[in-house]
């Protein structure tokens, strides 16, 4: 049978994009199908490999490599434990190869965590951070000035500076952070979301205004400047470098608002890169059903007007979890929407359960159970029906990124493994 593509990936979040990148790098023809933009832009854009161990009550993990060993031992259902740590490491290396080619390099080895500030004045552990953010580690001794503008929403520099000083004091580091609030940049809207400000600053004249304002705010004690993540979207890290060079002082971004500029940037740049590398994309399509027939996957699309079919040799399901609607919950059940795969935690909505929101959440943990090669297990029927079907990202059961700070890390690792398997397994 003639197939349209070697590999069809459903979902354009990080796991889907990585699966597509991996399969494409393996020489396969790849089509990515996506319904919406994906919820990658609702993350920080950092690759959190592991930030907190289960049961550690919110302690930030710094030793990622050690943490992964421990996690694999105590939490065998976690996707990392299933993949095996060697492949997790391989996926990190893959990321470190891909991103310079994308033109948006990430910093960090993956073995230890940065401790980066948040827009709420708390700290967040992450292993791989974009170059625009990596300079913000709160353990750094430099005198740090957090800058804000009156018209910018979701950004409170005093809360950030005071919050980080409080954390530094607890660690005996002494407070070195201060803040300044500037008037709105001339020409900017009176109410500006970080995304709007990023668009505003993509104009070279506006960026000049920003740089001039920052210059005036610097004091002799300023060792680095903390900005909201607003330094352009489409230009990658170019505006960031320009600001840093012109200012003559290290600068770092902190993601602010939702969606985040750092998340949007990553999503858009990755998609553009993959398109240029020959990966096909079809946006604005819902998948009605998938069926394995004559040794190929037939994916039926619900296009405006009618259904259409594309065929592929392997299928990667990276459709997202409940937020991204790869999983859907009604009043009694959670179901997997595309292939009808069995869901661990299926009956949660109708059951008495504890979901205070703060701890590991049963709904977040629900999802599809896979083996170490991302193949669905515990299917009720014929195992042949799931041949060459691989699942990646938030559709998977067994982890809660809000608590573990392992969301994009799992997306990277499982997307990598799924893409690898889809490209190679016969």
């Amino acid at each position, binding site marked *: 049978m003639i197939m349209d593509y070697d590999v069809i990936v459903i979902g354009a979040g990080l796991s889907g994009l990585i699966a597509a990148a991996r399969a494409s790098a393996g020489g396969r023809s790849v089509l990515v199908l996506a319904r919406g933009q994906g919820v990658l832009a609702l993350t920080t854009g950092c690759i959190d490999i592991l930030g907190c161990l289960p049961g550690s009550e919110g302690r930030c993990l710094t030793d990622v490599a050690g943490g992964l060993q421990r996690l694999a031992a105590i939490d065998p259902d976690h996707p990392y434990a299933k993949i095996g740590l060697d492949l997790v490491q391989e996926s990190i290396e893959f990321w470190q190869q891909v991103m310079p080619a994308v033109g948006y390099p990430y910093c960090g080895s993956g073995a230890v965590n940065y401790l980066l500030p948040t827009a709420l004045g708390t700290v967040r552990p992450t292993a791989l951070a974009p170059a625009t953010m990596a300079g913000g580690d709160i353990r750094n001794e430099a005198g740090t000035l957090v800058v804000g503008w009156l018209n910018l929403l979701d950004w409170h520099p005093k809360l950030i500076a005071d919050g980080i000083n409080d954390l530094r004091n607890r660690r005996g580091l002494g407070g070195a952070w201060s803040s300044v609030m500037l008037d709105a940049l001339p020409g*900017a*809207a009176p*109410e500006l979301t970080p995304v709007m400000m990023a668009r505003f600053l993509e104009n070279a004249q506006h960026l000049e205004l920003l740089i001039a304002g920052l210059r005036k705010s610097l004091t002799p004690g300023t060792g680095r400047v903390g900005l909201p993540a607003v330094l352009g979207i489409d230009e990658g890290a170019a505006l960031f470098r320009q600001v840093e060079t012109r200012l003559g002082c290290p600068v770092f971004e902190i993601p602010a608002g939702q*969606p985040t500029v750092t998340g949007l940037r990553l999503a858009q740049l990755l998609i553009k890169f993959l398109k240029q590398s020959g990966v096909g994309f*079809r946006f604005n*399509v819902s998948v009605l059903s998938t069926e394995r027939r004559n040794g190929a996957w037939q994916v039926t699309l619900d*296009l405006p*007007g009618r259904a259409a079919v594309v065929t592929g040799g392997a299928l990667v399901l990276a459709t*997202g979890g409940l*937020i991204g609607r790869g999983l859907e919950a009604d009043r009694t059940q959670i179901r997997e929407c595309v292939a009808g795969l069995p869901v661990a935690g299926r009956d949660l909505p109708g059951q008495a359960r504890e979901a205070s929101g703060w701890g590991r959440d049963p709904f977040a943990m629900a999802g599809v159970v896979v083996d170490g090669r991302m193949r669905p297990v515990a299917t009720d029927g014929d195992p042949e029906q799931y041949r060459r079907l691989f699942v990646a990202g938030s559709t998977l059961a067994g982890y809660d990124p809000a608590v573990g700070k392992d969301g994009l890390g799992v997306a990277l690792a499982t997307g990598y493994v799924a893409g690898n398997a889809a490209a190679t397994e016969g």
Partner: protein
Amino acid sequence: MDLPIRSELDKCIKCGLCTASCPVASRTGGFAGPKHLGPEMTRFRLDDRLGLEAQIDYCCNCRTCEQACPSGVKISLLNACYRHDLHTRQGLKLRDGILGRPGMMARLGSLNAGATNYVLNNRLVRAALDRGLGIARERPLPAYSRENLKKWFQRRRQPDSSPNKVVYFPGCTAEYNLPEIGRSVVNILERCSYQVILPPPNCCGLPLAANGFLEDAARMAGQNLDNLLPFVRQGYPVIVSCPSCGLALKSEYEEFHNLPQARSLAANVYDFSEWLLTLQQRGAPASGFRDLALRVAYHTPCHLKAQGIGQPSLEILKKIPSLQVIEVDEGCCGMSGSFGFKKEQYRLSLEIGARLFNRIREIAPDLVASDCSSCCMQISHATGIGAVHPAVLIDQAYGRVEEKK
């Protein structure tokens, strides 16, 4: 419309991805964006005591928001209903009535195309249109052709030879303003051994819906269903060359107007390039392409993206020997049908497309290709580089020389 509105607004989780993707909201402080205008304000509008607000004029109906939304909210449906309410309750703008009826204006304008074009290019007339109606004077208006597509088609009528028949719905532009698009489409379809049927010229109704004239749009849709369904029942596909017409026929007739049988029409509507690519994949005469030594930048119109069919024109253009085609991929051009004609949006419309125009200038192509003639107008206007429908290039690659009029 009441129930669908309620279920649409309930889907929103307020993540803001729509507003972040909106080409208008990210570039103007006057517009709080699709989340606010759609699901957020619809909750307020359900309280029938409350007054209405005018931000809707900023929505250019490009539907980028719907493609970004992770919750599947049909924001354009919420907005169309709201525009309709606004018109019902506050009266409507003559200008929007005119911009919403390109077909009617074209029929009038084409009566004496030369005179109309002369008048519409007159500076005094443009100043009057600007002041009186709010149609931006800087914006070139589409010229009307001396011979519309229907006249040409009748003049050169081919014998009923082929057993394979397709219906071609040219829409207003290919009928009145740029019939060369229509001629190319007909030529190519005939070259692929199809007999082409042209239904009576009619607007698809999308500009009406986009300007809030839902009832008129529904009436137009009803006429088109009457015109097209008899052919569909005989198993003939309906081909469109305008992405907005395609979107109207494929989705709006059902989603906005809830017309019976809209679905059976929609299932048989194909964008021209979508259809041709399918034919080529089935082995149709793609081999017939001649060299076309041109450097072409391709821009995907928003309404084509909204159809979820990928980029069939781009794929076909890539097959033309010697044709160097570069995808621009910088989002909305800012024109969005009637939006860019409006005086108050003219500048904004150019700002929205600024990245796209810069990128095209960088590429410095001989020509720009885009399936949407309103994108083509905007791009030519902003960059000074000619822009054509891909069908025109494909037609040339198939070896046709434009006949002299």
